[in-house]
């Protein structure tokens, strides 16, 4: 395991220069990935490919390791004390866990949107969107930054709603707006892959639809993986669906199957998948 697939990425200051230009969507691939929290194995032997310019939905019951797996893709998993990873994950062929790879650099290329909206409470709408640039891209001309902020907010379908209150606190927006603000913040640094961990679970149906529309638009530019508990959402918004399951509680979660969303929802290969998507499980 852990063979380096390409040039190791090190250093933390080079991201700024290319942050302004699009990087393009890239493939992220997992091979025989096992994930642990201390002695407890949360995910067992997952191999799957998340393809560029497609939305891949990860579905499955609570505790089956979808979120854990998602967080392993941009090395957020290891932030939990005691967490460890075994197996290989590669971004565009390059080993994400290879020797010399800087997790900070990985996270610049693989962005993430979280379950509940988490704008920085000390920052305005503008500052929130520009946060990735201000924090990590070094000095930048005001006009250039303005352009990135506008483009990101437009990209997140939020510009029209907030253009007159860019200097107001980001936490003053509604829940759905806050989540789109977080998406704008994530895409402002032009990642190659966007991971979404149940981005709509804290939102009402109207805000949920707005985010789903947005996800469909964003796939033109990014590779998107989304964890969801909402079957309709997976069916509506994704191209590929991966079904995770665990035999029983206390056992690690496994990938049961992955395929075109339509296939998974209409004629899946596995009985467990069919039971889950049709609401018969246990």
């Amino acid at each position, binding site marked *: 395991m852990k063979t380096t697939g390409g040039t190791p990425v090190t250093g933390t200051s080079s991201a700024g220069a290319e942050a302004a230009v699009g990087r393009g969507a890239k493939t992220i691939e997992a091979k025989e990935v096992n994930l642990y929290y201390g002695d407890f194995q949360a995910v067992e032997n997952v191999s799957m490919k998340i393809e560029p310019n497609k939305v891949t939905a990860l579905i499955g019951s609570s505790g089956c390791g979808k979120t854990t797996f998602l967080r392993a893709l941009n090395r957020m998993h290891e932030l939990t004390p005691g967490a460890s990873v075994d197996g290989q994950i590669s971004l565009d062929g390059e080993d994400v866990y290879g020797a010399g790879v800087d997790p900070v650099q990985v996270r610049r290329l693989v962005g993430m949107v979280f379950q*509940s909206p988490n704008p920085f409470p000390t920052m305005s709408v503008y500052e929130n969107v520009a946060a990735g640039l201000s924090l990590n891209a070094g000095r930048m001309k005001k006009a250039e930054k303005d352009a990135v902020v506008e483009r990101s907010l437009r990209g997140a379908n939020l510009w029209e709603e907030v253009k007159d209150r860019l200097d107001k606190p980001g936490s003053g927006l509604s829940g759905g707006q806050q989540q789109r603000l977080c998406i704008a913040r994530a895409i402002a640094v032009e990642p190659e892959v966007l991971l979404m961990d149940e981005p709509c679970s804290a939102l009402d149906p109207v805000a949920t639809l707005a985010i789903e529309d947005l996800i469909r638009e964003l796939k033109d530019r990014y590779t998107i993986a989304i964890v969801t508990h909402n079957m309709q959402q997976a069916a509506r918004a994704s191209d590929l669906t991966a079904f995770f399951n665990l035999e029983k509680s206390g056992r690690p979660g496994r990938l049961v199957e992955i395929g075109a969303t339509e296939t998974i929802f209409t004629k899946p290969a596995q009985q467990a998948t069919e039971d889950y998507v049709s609401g018969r499980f246990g």
Partner: protein
Amino acid sequence: MASGVERRLLAQGSTGWARRAKDRFATLVIAAAFGLAMIPLISLLYEVGKRGLPGISLEFFTSDARGVVAGGGAEHAIVGTLVITGVAALISVPIGIMAAIYMTEYGTGKLRRALTFFVDVMTGIPSIVAGLFAYALFEIFFGPGIRLGVMGSLALSVLMIPIVIRSAEEVLKIVPNHLREAAYALGTPKWKTITRIVLPTAFAGLVTGVMLATARIIGETAPLLVTTGVIDSINSDPFNGRMQNLAVYAYNEYRSPGVMKQASYDRAWAAALTLIAIVMILNVLARLVYRRYRTEIS
């Protein structure tokens, strides 16, 4: 009222009466307990105000006590208190906040637990021990009998650091983890996440904690008696010579009142009143800062 309505919402005879009586009794007991708790506080403020005000005069704030037989003021003690406490805060705040950052953001396992334990122990150190520690330390370098303002500051920092650590730790702990994760997900290194996200979010709470810790140590007497000594004239240089402060000043005016006893006692009470006023100002400032800079954390 329609005749068919069954009236179930009315108080039911004696049970309703008994319940109301119990409610009133409990309210009374709690109010009485609150009143009892307020008595010492109110009477203290009243007494200090009553006895302190006669000693308050322009002279009290604008002259020292050098060479005076009767009269004189406490300007040297006020200046000394502010300088000694200020330097103590300058030493304690960076150390305390950085230690708290270590404990909330970096520390794990045994080392962290050991630190928490020692901070707890430090919180309970008697203040005279802190004073003797500072004295013993300076004695090594400057010989016996050394008295400096900065020695007092050091002694006070020994008392202040654990308080700052504790309050800063509590404040940093309530910065939600999802904000740190949001920063990490943007490819932000840990140190920047702490300096640019965690600390600004916790700013109001940190300032409040520091101000309350300052208020806590500003009235210390014992550690200053053995470190900054007693002097009658103004000295604002903590690195050179003895330095007076309000608590020691009040103590001295009472212990050796001189010929005009009552005037000395008045000055002692005025010093006490001034000290309370400074503490109150710090408290009000803490509240203002908290209101102004507090961040709503979802």
